[in-house]
């Protein structure tokens, strides 16, 4: 049962892949409008935790609530509605190969029932910000991995979502582009969005902490650790 006011609320949530227990009784609340970085060694369960939030997985035990809805009990329509309120940057980007970068960025608008032509200026501004304005007609296969990641970031924020979930958003990008991606997240956060970024990039976290009220969560042995203490 979800009980808190958080945008994300884990209550003793467990998750295992077969015999491998990845998350152990994770209890966690992210307040609305907060900015969090999720760290931990590779394989610590960061992506799994994010998947529980964006409803790709459901907990084996305990509960996960996102924006007030307990994820395990949601039907297909409610899951889709909840996802439309999120912006996702997935680790493998998941751009649609047959669409141009412009259409990939506009895809969440189309899914939300908006006319992308009415948001052309926003799409162009976003593409310019992430350095892809000259590649809008290109297809994902023509882009470098860094460019693909920047396109995925632009796609994630084009609808100005209430919740941004990003899994290694600066993984393949140079320092300048990483700074611009961070700036996008900070701007959305200042506008009220809750942002959760899983990353290994400590310089990104330091930059964010210098600019905003950013908190760091660390996953160790399947449990969340913050400031050296289990939450």
């Amino acid at each position, binding site marked *: 049962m979800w009980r808190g006011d958080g945008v994300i609320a884990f209550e003793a949530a467990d998750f295992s892949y077969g015999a491998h227990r990845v998350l152990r009784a994770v209890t966690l609340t992210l307040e609305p409008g907060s900015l969090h970085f999720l760290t931990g060694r590779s394989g610590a369960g960061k992506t799994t935790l994010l998947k529980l939030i*964006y409803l790709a997985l459901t907990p084996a035990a305990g509960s996960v609530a996102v924006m007030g809805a307990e994820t395990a009990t949601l039907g*297909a329509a409610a899951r889709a*509605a909840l*996802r*439309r309120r999120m912006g996702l940057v997935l680790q493998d980007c*998941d751009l649609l190969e*047959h*669409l141009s970068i412009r259409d990939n960025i506009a895809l*969440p608008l*189309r899914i939300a029932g908006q006319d992308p032509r009415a948001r052309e200026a926003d799409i162009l501004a976003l593409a310019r910000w992430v350095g892809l304005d000259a590649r809008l007609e290109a297809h994902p296969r023509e882009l470098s991995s860094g460019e693909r990641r920047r396109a995925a970031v632009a796609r994630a924020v084009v609808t100005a979502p209430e919740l941004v979930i990003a899994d290694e958003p600066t993984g393949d990008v140079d320092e300048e582009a990483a700074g611009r991606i961070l700036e996008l997240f900070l701007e959305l956060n200042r506008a009220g969005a809750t942002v959760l970024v899983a990353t290994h990039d400590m310089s990104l976290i330091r930059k964010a902490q210098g600019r905003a009220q950013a908190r760091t969560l660390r996953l160790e042995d399947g449990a969340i650790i913050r400031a050296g203490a289990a939450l």
Partner: protein
Amino acid sequence: MSARRPGPVAPHAATPYLVAVVSGAMCFLAVLALEAAGGAARVSGAWSDGMAGAATVRIPAPEGRSAATPLAVAALAALSDAPGVADARLLAAEEMAALAAPWLGDALNPAEWPAPLLIDVTLADPPPARDAMQARLDAAAPGALYDDHAAWRAPLEQAAAAFRRLAFWSVGLMGIALAAMVTAAARASLAGAAATVRTLRLLGARDGDVARAFERPIALRALIGGALGAPAAALALSQAPLGLGPALGAPAPWSATLALIVAAPPASAALAWLTARLAILLMLRRAP
């Protein structure tokens, strides 16, 4: 930027061309079956109508061959003022001979053998009740037998009804075959675009939106296939030397054939659309 944005599902994944081939074949066969059923109905209808408008009265074989036997005269008199009878006429010896000729040849003279006399009765609308007519004849000309051809019409009508049932069963089976093909095509398309579907759902696409991306191309292919198959069947029928001849009934009215050609492709597309949608929604419901 292109004027028309591409759909969220790659065309190669959502374009099961086989559906067009199967839809074309099914529409071809459906039009053939329905045209055949229509033809059978028209033939039996023409025969049945021909018999329904007439009746025959048999007078037991007379001693001589005089047409004016007292029994025949009495039967004619009874028929002349009977309700539901437009005309009654005793067949002449020559007409009797002509009727018997196909079976007995021209060499025999009907006047030389004891054949019953026949009265050809033209019925009005509504025709008289069989039992009432027989009772009337029994009273006026005992032994005269009234035959309204019902015994002949019944098998014809049953045969026509059987043809119609067979045609509708055939069309139903073709529909089932098309639906099965579409289901397989939809499942293959969905499996081939699994990564795209996963991305769309993660971005918040409703299952109905995802299904729409697949069902439209499938329905379009079914429509195109049907639009080729249905007229091809009509063309094949018009060219086929069936040798039935106009005596078996009027040829199919063009309006009926045209209605079939026009209706078959959209019906095929609608079936394909509905089947694809249900198959995809069912698969999506089972997917995480």
